[in-house]
């Protein structure tokens, strides 16, 4: 499905901020390869370094060590002029949209084209095309102050796409939006990725954004990449501590429940059509208490997890474990 040609390659990337009294390592030894045509997610808690990372990709922040290869060119070795040119092939959208407040929607979309020296008329026609792509043809003359958050982000997306970039960087692009608007923006990004074949790099702190649109994900924690992999893989079997924390973010409170034995059942997209829990209870004749459940739709398959309280008597306990084992349902015991 994916074209395996790398578009962005980060190797040994590091960024140290030096202030008067101390050095802060924002990023250390980051190695990532992002392929053409994929939607790649970078997730981390705030302060993990993800915003710095995305700014290193287009050299808004100059890395202090390592290399950034973009479309075959080493950005660090480019002259200033060529670097500015390269940035025109990388669109970027932001949490706060960052539209020019004194320009209307159409003029905002024309802005990067003006910077690139595209003739006015041509720019205007291109801007109109883009308004159509983002579904805001009727808002051409509206100023940002007259638009809702979702509309502003659509205009920002249109603006970022104006120069036909190869990559679109999204820095917390949906974090300022409500859930419904978030979904519509994510759908738009997906559509853009599929129709225009633009590689999208998504920075977020929300797992649901990753689940919704990303093919692969990198988890960043304390300036390092903790884990990289296909979204399904990371979601079903998170390896690092931080990954587990992000994936299982909703169940932090289960420790408070009484009962010694708990078990996490994982729905990995295969077993979701079977009534797993009902069958388990019927077959083992042991009632269970559901402590936590969370299922999601990823790429049309149901993924999720459920934490159940296991019976205290050994008999019931083994019946349930046996059931899970024989039906090959992924599970793990938690204490």
């Amino acid at each position, binding site marked *: 499905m994916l074209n395996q040609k790398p578009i962005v390659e980060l190797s040994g990337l590091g960024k140290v901020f030096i202030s008067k009294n101390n050095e802060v390592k924002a990023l250390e030894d980051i190695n990532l390869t992002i392929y053409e045509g994929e939607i790649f997610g970078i997730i981390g808690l705030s302060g993990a370094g993800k915003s710095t990372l995305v700014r290193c990709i*287009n050299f*808004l922040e100059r890395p202090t060590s390592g290399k950034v290869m973009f479309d075959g060119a080493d950005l660090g070795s480019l002259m200033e002029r060529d*670097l*500015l*040119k*390269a*940035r*025109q092939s*990388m*669109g*970027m959208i*932001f949490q*706060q949209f*960052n*539209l*020019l*407040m*004194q*320009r*209307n929607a159409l003029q905002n979309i024309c*802005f*990067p084209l*003006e*910077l*690139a020296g595209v003739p006015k008329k041509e720019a205007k026609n291109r801007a109109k095309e883009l308004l159509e792509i983002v579904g805001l043809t009727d808002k051409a003359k509206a*100023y*940002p*102050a007259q638009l809702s958050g979702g509309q502003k982000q659509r205009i*920002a997306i249109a603006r970022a796409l104006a*120069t036909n970039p190869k990559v679109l*960087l999204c820095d917390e692009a949906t974090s300022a939006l409500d859930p419904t608007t978030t979904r519509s923006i994510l759908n738009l990004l997906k559509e853009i990725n599929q129709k225009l074949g633009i590689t999208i790099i998504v920075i977020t702190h929300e797992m649901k954004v990753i689940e919704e649109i990303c093919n692969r994900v990198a988890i960043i924690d304390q300036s390092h990449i903790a884990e990289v992999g296909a979204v399904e893989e990371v979601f079903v079997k998170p390896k690092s501590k931080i990954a587990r924390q992000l994936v299982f973010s909703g169940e932090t409170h289960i420790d408070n429940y009484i009962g010694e034995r708990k078990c996490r059942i994982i729905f990995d997209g295969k077993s979701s059509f079977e009534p797993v829990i009902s069958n388990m209870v019927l077959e083992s004749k042991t009632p269970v208490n559901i402590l936590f459940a969370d299922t999601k739709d990823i790429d049309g398959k149901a993924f999720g997890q459920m934490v159940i309280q296991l019976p205290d008597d050994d008999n019931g306990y083994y019946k349930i474990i046996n059931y899970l084992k024989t039906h090959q349902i992924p599970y793990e015991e938690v204490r």
Partner: protein
Amino acid sequence: MWSEAVIKMLGVGIMETLYMTFFSSFVAYVIGLPVGILLVVTDKEGIAPLVPLNKVLGIIVNLVRSVPFVILLITVMPFTRLLIGTTIGSTAVVVPLIIASAPYIARLVESSLKEVDKGVIEAAQSMGATPLQIIYKVLIPEAMPSLIVGGAIAVTTILSYSAMSGFVGGGGLGDIAIRYGYYRYETEIMLVTVVILVIIVQIIQEAGFKWMKRADKRL
């Protein structure tokens, strides 16, 4: 008191005041606007950091701004004579007016441009904008409403400076107020000039705000 001579004198006074104010404002902006822009862009957090230049400009601006205008008026007299050939009259007063107001305007411009959202500047950088493009396509247009208000403030300040120049024979309404009100105790004429000055200030202020509101697309 409303003799033809007085009315004519007031008329000339108004014209001189307006001439001094607007001509000085114009030239002061020619100097102050680029200096203000430089103060912002060469700042160590700016889009083209050049800290030594920034420091030097900052020091010059602060030095000139800390000299009270009445004193500056007298201090620059030799320079004015060199430039204009005389130290009295409206044209001569324009010299100290420009010297005093250019750094003031530079600071006004600086504070207006600093109001521009950092995110918007970053967005422009992410599109490959050069520092020059950021200045004339982002900083100035985005700060325009604030620059206009700053302009109105600058012009009214220059107007009040121009009135002070009456003490050295600078001409204009201030000169009339000082000569008649202070030296000759003709309070009425002084009051009339004060009223005219107030009206002029009001008009400039109002026009500035109206223009700002029309220019600002955020409202």
